[in-house]
């Protein structure tokens, strides 16, 4: 297959941002009819590679060759015209427009020079049906869709452009298991039709299931390209992080049921999204939240932190009633709460502000003496937490936006650890961050739990839940379907409960 003339070829491509090389002398080839996995930690150069291929940015040095012709894309439109289409990790959908508008945003069907709405709707319906998304109405607004549906629309949009090379950048991160199956089928069909596919994912089992070959990046360099089956998973992981992994997950301690209940919720309900949820979390315990995406896990975390209005039911912290009136109340509870939000770029961080300001934002009152602010005390506290979390920074005054995804997430964690929380709620904290940082996050959570902190941890990665949590609450349709622990806590039971069936578990 890969004997065919390559669709995309990169020769000695480098990209510098300021003095830092994001991509360094990279040679890369993608062939038609081949699924090519691109692997690497965040900041390894994958995103830069993709951005260059898709015309979002241009290389500082080197050549990009598409189907034998040297190209110099000035914008994504030119790349699309050449057949290179990318499904970006940051969704490129327009929230205020309808699904039909989004699917035909660039070259809609015209009638008399104007957009033909009826034909456009028909086209949308066909496209949606082709990827198994019949439940999305073409006239629905994208902002009214859940994240998993949006991601499917995004994929449909890319397919509508009839790509020769399709780039999927973490395109399945929010999908439900059934959708992932659909996407796999589509990708395999495209492959047999001769389309080249670049597949970026942090999920190793996806890559095992799909890829024909893989390229590993590290520190802006291409480390190795190899065919499927030539390297073991642990060898690949080691290539990515450049060091040996001893344990994937920290050891779990023997459960101590005697610890007092830190957070207790009874009969929490919120519209149709939360139904009669009761749970207890003890001090020193890591409790996972599992289930398919969009079953109410995010709403539950937001509800506990007081962000949602009109939640019924009661919550107690250390046995004392707690009012769900907002983050400030949550932070003043007998055991202060902390929430690591879903989207670190819009909810966790102020990207243009510097690292110190971001880290101390939630604990500013600790450094206040009357009107005056004790900058020295703040500086040393921030320095300590940066050391503790091993955040890689050049300068405290650098903007957070200059950090890699993993380090950005650490800044969010640092911000909350500064407040000395007794209960930590995490909303999918390892999504889109590199393997090395993930390990550190797992260890951090276990260390905190050992010190008596109660942790409620939602993750879309089942392996993570199994590896990290003392027990897992699987949610289905706004309620807690089942509690899994001990030997019952394994991938199979989670999936079965998540799907709320115990027949053919056709998905991995």
């Amino acid at each position: 297959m890969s004997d065919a003339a390559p669709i995309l070829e990169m020769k000695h491509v480098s990209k510098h941002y300021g003095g830092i090389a994001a991509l360094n002398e990279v040679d890369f080839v993608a062939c038609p009819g081949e699924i090519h996995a691109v692997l690497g930690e965040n900041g390894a150069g994958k995103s830069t590679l993709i951005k260059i291929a898709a015309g979002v940015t241009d290389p500082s040095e080197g050549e990009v060759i598409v189907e034998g012709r040297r190209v110099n894309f000035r914008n994504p439109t030119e790349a699309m015209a050449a057949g290179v289409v990318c499904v970006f990790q940051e969704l490129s959908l327009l929230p205020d427009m309808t699904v039909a508008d989004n699917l035909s945003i660039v070259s809609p069907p015209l009638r008399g020079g104007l957009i033909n709405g009826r034909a456009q709707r028909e086209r949308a319906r066909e496209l949606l049906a082709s990827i198994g998304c019949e439940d999305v109405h073409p006239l629905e607004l994208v902002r009214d869709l859940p994240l998993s549906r949006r991601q499917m629309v995004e994929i449909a949009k890319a397919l509508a452009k009839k790509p020769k090379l399709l780039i999927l950048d973490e395109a399945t991160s929010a999908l439900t298991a059934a959708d992932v199956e659909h996407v796999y089928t589509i990708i395999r069909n495209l492959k047999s039709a001769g389309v080249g596919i670049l597949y970026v994912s942090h999920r190793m089992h996806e890559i095992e299931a799909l890829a024909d070959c893989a390229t590993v990046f590290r520190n802006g360099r291409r480390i190795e390209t190899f065919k499927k089956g030539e390297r073991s998973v642990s060898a690949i992981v080691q290539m990515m992080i450049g060091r040996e992994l001893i344990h994937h997950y920290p050891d779990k301690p023997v459960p101590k049921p005697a610890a007092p209940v830190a957070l207790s919720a009874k009969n929490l309900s919120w519209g149709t999204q939360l139904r009669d949820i009761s749970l207890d979390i003890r001090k020193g315990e890591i409790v996972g939240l599992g289930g398919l995406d969009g079953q109410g896990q995010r709403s539950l975390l937001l509800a506990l932190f007081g962000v949602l209005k009109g939640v019924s039911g009661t919550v107690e912290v250390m046995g004392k009633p707690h009012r769900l009136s907002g983050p400030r109340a949550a932070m003043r509870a007998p055991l202060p709460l902390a929430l690591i939000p879903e989207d670190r770029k819009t909810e966790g961080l102020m990207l243009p502000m510097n690292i110190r300001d971001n880290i101390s934002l939630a604990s500013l009152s600790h450094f206040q003496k009357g009107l005056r602010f004790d900058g020295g005390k703040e500086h040393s506290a921030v320095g300590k937490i940066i050391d503790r979390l091993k955040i890689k920074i050049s300068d405290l005054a650098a903007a957070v936006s200059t950090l890699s995804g993993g380090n950005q997430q650490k800044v969010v964690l640092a911000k909350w650890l500064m407040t000395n929380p007794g209960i930590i709620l995490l909303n999918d904290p390892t999504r889109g961050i590199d393997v090395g940082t993930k390990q550190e996050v797992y260890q951090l959570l276990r260390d905190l739990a050992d010190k008596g902190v109660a942790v409620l941890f939602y993750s879309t990665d089942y392996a993570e839940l199994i590896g990290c949590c003392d027990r897992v609450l699987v949610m289905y349709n706004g309620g807690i379907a089942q509690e899994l622990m001990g030997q019952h806590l394994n991938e199979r039971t989670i999936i079965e409960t998540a799907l709320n069936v115990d027949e053919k578990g056709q998905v991995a």
Partner: protein
Amino acid sequence: MNDLRHRIHHNGGLLAAIGLFIVMFIIYISNHPVGLTVAVATTASNKAVLLALVAMAQTLPVLTRGLDLSVGMVFILANCLASVIVIGTIGEGLLGITVVLGAGALAGFINGAIIVWGRLQPIITTLATGAMYYGIALYIRPGPGGDVQSDIADLATGQLFGVVPTTLVVLLVIVLIVWLPYRNSVPGRAALAVGSNEQAAYMSGVPVQRAKLLAYTLAGLLAAAGGLMLTFNTYSGEASAPIAGTYTLNSIAAVVIGGTSLFGGWGSAIGSIFGAFVLRTIEDLLFVFDLDPLWQPLFQGVVLLAAVSLGALRVLRIRNRLELFT
């Protein structure tokens, strides 16, 4: 039907603005000493169409998540220019009209060019260009005065077939030949896409720059059309900064009342027309209820504030507090 449900959901703001206008207009007419006659309707229409055109102009940049604080100045500039060049024979007058509209489009294009290629913020750009356009208007007409081709002016401010106010017809024609084709064209939809999420629009291959340029250019054109109609109403030109300021401010209010989001990506120029009608009817209501002139500015202010405060109802519907910040 499912399609219909979606369409109503999409156009809620527009329908509300139309409803509000109808209610206010009925109150106005039922309290008017003469009632609904052709003359009353024509006077009301002639005044309302001016703001309606400026509000339409304002809508286009707002849809791209921008703002044009120079619409009032372009409106005044067109008024001054028309009072100098739309004179003579009908033919010369028509030529003058073309030049005035062209000047408006050029002013809009300059705004767009500075915003797109100069990469400046729309608010501050149009504040500065507004000062320039006002300066040019003042240069053209240092004191109030001038004239306008009277045949065209009489036709434009009279009635068609003795019943329908011509200004309403003009407005309808502008909607049909400018707004609707624009809304359903590729660059028009691109403008909405830019307002919805500029980064995503760029990533999707939407011609972002062209969409913005066109939006601001058309805004200049529409504001100039408003200025022309003003000249036909008053038979003179006046470089008045307060009038320009009032129109700019009211245009923003009309856009909001018409259901267009100031955060872009959402709304329609037709809504803004009804928003403008609502604002005008409020003034007329003060007249029919014979309010002490001393109280009128306060009353207008309170009504304006109350009208825009209707937007706060949104807060009651929000159940996830994070949505407050978007």
